[in-house]
């Protein structure tokens, strides 16, 4: 088990190397110079100034040299400095990363609560109007463009009803709307998976046995069926987490929830490569760790799964 975990953690090394190579490749190919972009349309600073900023940030070295240097400092846990603010990438990212994680976990919470209950409900009431209704709802969420859904949420809950703030990332109250928006969208996939997984399990021999032993329906569902039905659900959760970490930028922008997605989009537009590298590395590492956690959860759910 411990060996397995260590091996999975070691996999982080090629992942980080891989994504960094991708970003450096991008950097070699994407047109646009970050310093020029920064000052475009302003009174342009003289060339000497631009060169000295470039030198200060180490951007004047050949790309392979920058790559090696970057790897060296990354090993020491240092991700470089942002071109735009000239601050440490770590300082720029940390607060936003916290926001993104918070939003991702909160949305996941909403998704699990809504998705699981919808899925179970549909499975238990299979082929009844309840089943149809839940699955139609699930389709609904799956087909909604996120940004449109977000705007509708704002117009109803913030502008009309004034229950919740429109924007900001200051408090938990600000978290509610973006988390519910993202969570509802994510919940729809979960609901479908839960339903079909539950149906498989409900047909299984041991559930029938449990019924035969005279256990109540409720106990059977919650204690025996659900636990086993959760395995594919957990897989999907791990995958969705990837989407929530880096792909929620539209929701972040719509709700002014200042996370790494918003930062990354801004950084791509401004060609602020150290920031892009930082975001991508942090997201990739989180993604790998979460998927490790998912796999470990399997063995907790199903003792037959043993990692070696």
């Amino acid at each position, binding site marked *: 088990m411990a060996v397995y975990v260590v091996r999975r953690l070691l996999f982080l090394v090629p992942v980080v190397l891989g994504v960094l190579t*991708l970003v450096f490749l991008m950097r070699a190919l994407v047109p646009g110079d970050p310093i020029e972009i920064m000052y475009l349309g302003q009174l342009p600073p003289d060339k000497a100034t631009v060169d000295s900023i470039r030198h200060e940030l180490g951007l004047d070295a050949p790309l392979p040299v920058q790559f090696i240097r970057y790897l060296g400092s990354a090993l020491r846990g240092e991700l470089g400095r942002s071109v735009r603010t000239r601050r440490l990438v770590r300082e720029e990212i940390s607060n936003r990363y916290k926001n993104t994680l918070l939003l991702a976990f909160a949305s996941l919470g909403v998704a699990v609560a809504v998705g699981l209950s919808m899925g179970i409900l549909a499975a238990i009431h299979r082929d009844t109007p309840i089943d149809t209704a839940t699955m139609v709802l699930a389709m*609904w969420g799956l087909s909604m463009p996120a940004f449109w859904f977000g705007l509708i949420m704002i117009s109803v809950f913030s502008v009309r009803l004034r229950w919740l703030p429109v924007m900001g990332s200051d408090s938990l109250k600000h978290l509610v709307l973006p988390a519910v928006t993202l969570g509802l969208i994510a919940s729809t996939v979960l609901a479908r998976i839960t339903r079909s997984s539950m149906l498989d399990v409900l047909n299984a021999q041991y559930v029938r046995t449990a019924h035969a032993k005279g256990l109540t329906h409720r106990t059977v569902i919650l204690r025996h069926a659900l636990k086993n039905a959760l395995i594919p659900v957990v897989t999907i959760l791990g995958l969705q987490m990837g989407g929530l970490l880096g792909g929620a930028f539209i929701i972040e922008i719509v709700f002014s929830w200042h996370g790494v997605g918003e930062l990354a989009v801004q950084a791509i537009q401004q060609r602020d490569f150290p920031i892009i590298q930082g975001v991508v590395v942090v997201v990739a590492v989180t993604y790998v760790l979460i998927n490790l956690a998912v796999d470990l959860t399997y063995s907790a759910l199903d003792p037959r799964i043993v990692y070696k």
Partner: protein
Amino acid sequence: MRPRPSLLKQLLRRRPAQIGGAVIMLLVLCAAFAALLAPYDPYKVKTADRLLRPSSHHWLGTDDLGRDQFSRILYGARTTLQVGLISVGIAMIIGVPVGVLSGYYGGWADLLIMRWIDIMLAFPYILLALAIVATIGPNLRNAMIAIGISSVPGWVRLVRGNVLSAVRNDYVSAAQALGATDWRVMFVHVLPNTLSSVVVLATLQFPTAVLAAAALSFVGLGAQPPSPEWGALLIGARDWIWTAPWLVNFPGVAIFVTILGFNLFGNALRDTLDPTLGQP
């Protein structure tokens, strides 16, 4: 391997498949006959008619340049259909062969490919697409390429998994024993076994591609004006949500209905082709 008629019948007996199929048909018809159906020229700028509410003259209102939105949405069906089909096509053309090779040969190549896929999966999908479009230049064609390439990892994973289970079949070992070449085994015996999941994934990836195109438009890297691609319409009108909501809501509904159609159809298809998954 074409679905046997009975499968088609089975499929069409499902209500979701009927609804989804109808939506897809409608979309195809709109795309094909936009020029005949559209009451106005979708590109004609007429500032005197700007921002008209939906009325009997302009069923879905006009945009800020006075263009008839109904006509634009009809024409946009074509572009939107293209975006979905071509992006999915690109992903498929790359993803399926790589998945087959990786699954069939296994060994080092497989290991390398799968590690690479893991890395790609750890790289945020939309950031990858953004980076690709920024590199090769923003227009609809490049957006489709970017969306296609970014979704390759999912395809490789799926196809490889299918191939892995298919090669265990007796008829594959039999074919190998009879001296069939690897290529023949792969494409005649193994590939058809993955077809049903490929078809299903394609239907389900279509909506993702359309939404991704909208996401690219959000940062200005999607369809170029005056293209009435729906994602671009929806995102381009986002600031009008409070003053001319019809500009946002109709493209939103169009996208929603289309995606709903593909999802309904795709799921029904999956349930028909793979009855082991829970019935709808």
